[in-house]
């Protein structure tokens, strides 16, 4: 029998994009704020968001300052989110060798800054992941490929990666599970944002009905089905004479609110090395109305997961009327309550978190 997991509480600075972008906090100030609010101990950073000059111009002076700060405020670096910018050139996609070198530079920065995990993205094929394994081994960094809507744990691309991981049998190759893949409703705060942009109640009802229909049908298992759903949102907006909202409906309705059932995570659970606790808002009852946070935490606990959960608030795209720090506080309270209800606890002590994260990442996938 699997023993109960003890997930580590944490946050990604992505949750505070609006405040950082508005220059309300610099990187130093934001990390201090996260620590002071008790949103750690886990700390996740996106290289291209938070680190000026990433990855080519990160000098040793900056590395030293970053490590000193994290030690001073007693946070635990979990994941450096790196990007697979295959489409950086206008004339063609990157070739294989260019891509490996592009990723190597970012993974090296993760190691220098003290992050044990680099979050990578779905454009990496099984062959690319295999080519990156020596890089992961060289730097001692776990590569956790993010499973994000419109993909999910049982998607054909994800299963192909899982099968390659199984063959390669390295503890350094795994997944980041993003809760946005298993959403149960169109986020009410986004509907409110559309309302503020003049969308009629009738149009909003149709958006919810369309999404609910996709939820009932189940998640897209191929890129073709995903494309059809994307187009359906654009068509809906056009028919309602709000073509300006079409792309927004489509990107959010398919790319943020993935309709997969929770049990799709079981397909890849042994390879889940990191979790993005993606969510969109906290309602007047203190609950997340569209992401089943309680069920997701229970599933992780019952499956023995003792890695980090980075609370990842994504409502900032549209919600400019609520404080993201209060929203994170609310969501982490739900996580702690859910872990307790499942007979375990979230790890909130930094010393415990360091020990447990190290053990979580060192163990073989099939223990």
């Amino acid at each position, binding site marked *: 029998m699997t023993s109960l997991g003890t997930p580590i509480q944490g946050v990604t600075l992505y949750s505070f994009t609006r405040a950082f972008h508005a220059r309300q906090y610099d990187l130093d100030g934001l990390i201090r704020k996260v620590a002071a609010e008790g949103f750690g101990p886990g700390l996740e950073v996106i290289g291209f968001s938070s680190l000026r000059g990433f990855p080519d111009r990160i000098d040793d002076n900056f590395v030293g300052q970053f490590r000193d700060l994290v030690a001073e405020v007693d946070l635990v670096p979990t994941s450096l989110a790196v990007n697979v*910018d295959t489409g950086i050139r206008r004339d063609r996609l990157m070739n294989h060798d260019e891509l490996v070198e592009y990723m190597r530079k970012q993974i090296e920065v993760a190691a220098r800054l003290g992050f044990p995990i680099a979050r990578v993205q779905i454009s990496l094929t099984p062959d690319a992941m295999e080519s990156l394994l020596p890089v992961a081994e060289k730097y001692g960094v776990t590569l956790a490929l993010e499973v994000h809507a419109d993909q999910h744990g049982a998607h054909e691309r994800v299963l192909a990666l899982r099968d390659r991981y199984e063959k390669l049998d390295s503890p350094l190759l795994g997944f980041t599970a993003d809760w946005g893949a298993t959403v149960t409703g169109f986020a009410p705060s986004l509907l409110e944002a559309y309302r503020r942009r003049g969308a009629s109640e009738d149009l909003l009802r149709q958006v919810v009905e369309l999404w609910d229909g996709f939820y009932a049908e189940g998640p897209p298992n191929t890129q073709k089905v995903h494309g059809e759903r994307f187009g359906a949102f654009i068509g809906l907006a056009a028919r309602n004479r709000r073509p300006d909202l079409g792309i927004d409906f489509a990107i959010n309705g398919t790319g943020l609110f993935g309709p997969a059932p929770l049990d799709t995570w079981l397909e890849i659970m042994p390879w889940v090395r990191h979790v993005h606790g993606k969510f969109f808002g906290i309602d007047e009852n203190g609950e997340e109305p569209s992401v089943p946070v309680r069920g997701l935490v229970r599933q992780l606990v019952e499956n023995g997961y003792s890695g980090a959960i980075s609370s990842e608030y994504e409502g900032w795209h549209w919600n400019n009327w609520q404080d993201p720090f209060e929203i994170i506080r609310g969501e982490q309270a739900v996580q702690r309550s859910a872990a307790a209800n499942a007979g375990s606890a979230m790890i909130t002590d930094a010393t415990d978190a360091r020990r447990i994260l190290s053990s979580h990442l060192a163990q073989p996938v099939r223990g």
Partner: protein
Amino acid sequence: MIADRIIEQGTLTTQDGRTAVEVRIPWYRALPGSCIAGAALTVDGVAAPEDSLRWTMNNRTFSFEELVDETGEWWFPLDSAVLSGDLPVHDGQAEHEVRVDLKLYIPYIITDHGVLHIEEHDTKTMKVAQR
């Protein structure tokens, strides 16, 4: 997406027929010049000619044609870039309506139709300063 922050309030300047405004990235992460695919600068309904537009970031100035191959200079989320073009703006006392359109490629999202690109715009009203 933070499109309402593209134009920095109060940064419209003009000199000898060229007009400039400071712009912020409406995205959460840095992008290289090669992903800044196009822009338009319009003041009081008059657009600067496309071939006169220039983009300044990290103390370097580029035409949009030059940006196509520029993967070494990045637009960081905290930094203002400067968009400028041939556009006379005369009345220093009046409020001017400034509009900026931006087209950006999102290099890690590859769709069936190629690399995802987004088009965003912002309009703000402000006075112009003579440089």
